[in-house]
């Protein structure tokens, strides 16, 4: 038997093949890879039962830490509680024949926020941001904190729709309806929390993580922690750079938006916006040309804002007065 020689192309194919999950016997057929996270790979797969394409998030290897499998299934359960147009819906979850945990979600056509934002104007970016706030506020209303909000975890669809992804670090802070009742939920949540932090690692992404989360005090994390991360996303959208801790926020051309970012990213939770909705409210006010709660403007700034808000009307009135004056002067001559 001749020894095998593997060409470059064959090597690449084998590398992909060896890493691929085994879907034999499952309802899914692999169609390609969509992306990779820290613990899992997201594949494009075909759901043969419902005849539709799905995003299949599969843990890396059966040999991997069993806590990760629990985390993925937990993410699926959290997502199942959140039916909102801004939150990616989960279709199915379980274990593949090769022992890997998986979670089937809606296949989102689009790009990550950090990529999508490049081609957008400031106003379009702020409108996207409002949709992110809306999804997060909805999760908060259901008692769920995301805890890992960042541009990489937000997908922007081809029609401008926004989907918040990766709820693997989410924390349930309030009682939810079925399937997890009362005390059992508390126990489950405690166990999940222990599993999530078992290795002593602080979970989340440093640039977007509030101090109370990075210090590891789980009980101190509340919806204002997500507000901090949203402030980071807002800053990223306005500056095209990830936020840096403690640094003064500077945004070209708008002290009001810089103040909103600073308030959202205040080190003390008490100084932040109390909720994602409040933060969104200030951004809406900015877009409408109204004053922000986070910023006390000077008389000159107020005048400039009002002029900007009613620019066309002001110009039309000025045009009328100008024409009237000209006609009067002409008549007197």
């Amino acid at each position: 038997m001749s020894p095998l020689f593997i060409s470059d192309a064959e090597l690449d194919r084998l590398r992909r093949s060896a890493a691929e999950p085994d879907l034999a016997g499952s309802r899914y057929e692999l169609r390609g890879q969509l992306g990779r996270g820290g613990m899992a790979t997201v594949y494009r797969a075909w759901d043969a039962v419902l005849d539709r394409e799905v995003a299949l998030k599969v843990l890396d290897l059966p040999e991997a830490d069993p806590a990760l499998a629990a985390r993925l299934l937990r993410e699926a359960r959290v997502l199942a509680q959140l039916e909102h147009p801004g939150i990616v819906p989960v279709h199915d979850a379980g274990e593949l024949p090769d022992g890997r945990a998986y979670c089937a979600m809606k296949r989102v056509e689009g790009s990550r926020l950090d990529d999508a934002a490049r081609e957008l104007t400031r106003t379009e970016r702020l409108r996207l941001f409002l949709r992110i706030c809306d999804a997060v506020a909805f999760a908060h209303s259901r008692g769920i904190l995301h805890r890992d909000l960042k541009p990489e975890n937000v997908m922007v669809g081809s029609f401008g729709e926004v989907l918040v992804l990766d709820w693997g670090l989410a924390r349930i802070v309030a009682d939810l309806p079925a399937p997890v009742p009362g005390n059992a939920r508390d126990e489950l949540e405690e166990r999940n929390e222990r599993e999530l932090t078992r290795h002593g690692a602080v979970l989340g992404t440093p640039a977007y993580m509030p101090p109370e989360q990075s210090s590891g005090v789980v009980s101190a994390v509340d919806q204002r922690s997500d507000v901090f991360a949203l402030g980071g996303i807002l800053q990223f959208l306005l500056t095209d750079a990830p936020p840096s801790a403690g640094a003064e926020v500077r945004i070209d051309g708008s002290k009001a938006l810089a103040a909103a970012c600073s308030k959202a990213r205040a080190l003390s939770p008490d100084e932040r916006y109390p909720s994602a909705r409040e933060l969104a409210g200030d951004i809406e006010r900015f877009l409408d040309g109204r004053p922000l709660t986070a910023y006390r403007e000077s008389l000159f700034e107020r005048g400039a804002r009002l002029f900007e808000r009613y620019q066309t009307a002001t110009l039309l009135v000025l045009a009328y007065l100008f024409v009237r004056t000209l006609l009067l002067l002409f008549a007197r001559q």
Partner: protein
Amino acid sequence: MAHSPTAIDPVPRPQGFPLTRISLLGALEEADPARSRNAWDELLRAYWQPIRRYICRRWHESPEAAEDLTQSFLARAIERQTFAAFDPRQARFRTFLRLCLDRDLANVREAAARQKRGGGETHLTLDAPAIASHPVLRTAIDDDPEELFHREWLRAIFETAMERLRASASLSGREVRFALFERYELGRSSTGGPGERPTYDELALEFAIPRTQVTNHLAWARQELRRLVLEELRRHTASPAEFRDEARRALGVEVT
């Protein structure tokens, strides 16, 4: 030299904890000739092909010349105990080996050039610059020696894993599993020729088995290949951290 490439036997390895690079390197300097010899065999098996192919691609040598240069490099390494200087805290063994190889080949080339200027003969091809500037013969990867050597090393790992997969299928009397996998993943027909990647249905027809069996055979082969590749990687890395890193690079997966 006794350590010829023909001594490398790509059959299934004995079970048990694999000999890591570190323990292997220690064994190279063993007083016991049998143990030292085994260690050298192991090292040659792992690195002979990557070195030879690296010389072909990076140094633009013919396969025959590359084989001679591989042989002479390893002979000099044994003679000068080059690998005794390896410190795992400073670099991967693969990187260390590649740097030794590049230095050695540069010396050989310089000596050959001197000899040529002095009228002597050499088997080295000295038209490397012409080859290097040839757009078809060069690839992007050739610009990065570390990447190139890693790729050759990885190719050797996968070739060994595939040989072991073939042997494993053969031992269990299920040669069809390997043939199917080879046909599907490498696009090779039973006669060894290259071809397009077939669909599951085409495979079922070609091998006269149900489609579900095609899926099952491929799933088994993928799982087995992954296990064997990880086993080879574990064998050829010096620490758990390096193993994790290599697994991530090779398969894009996190392992513990």
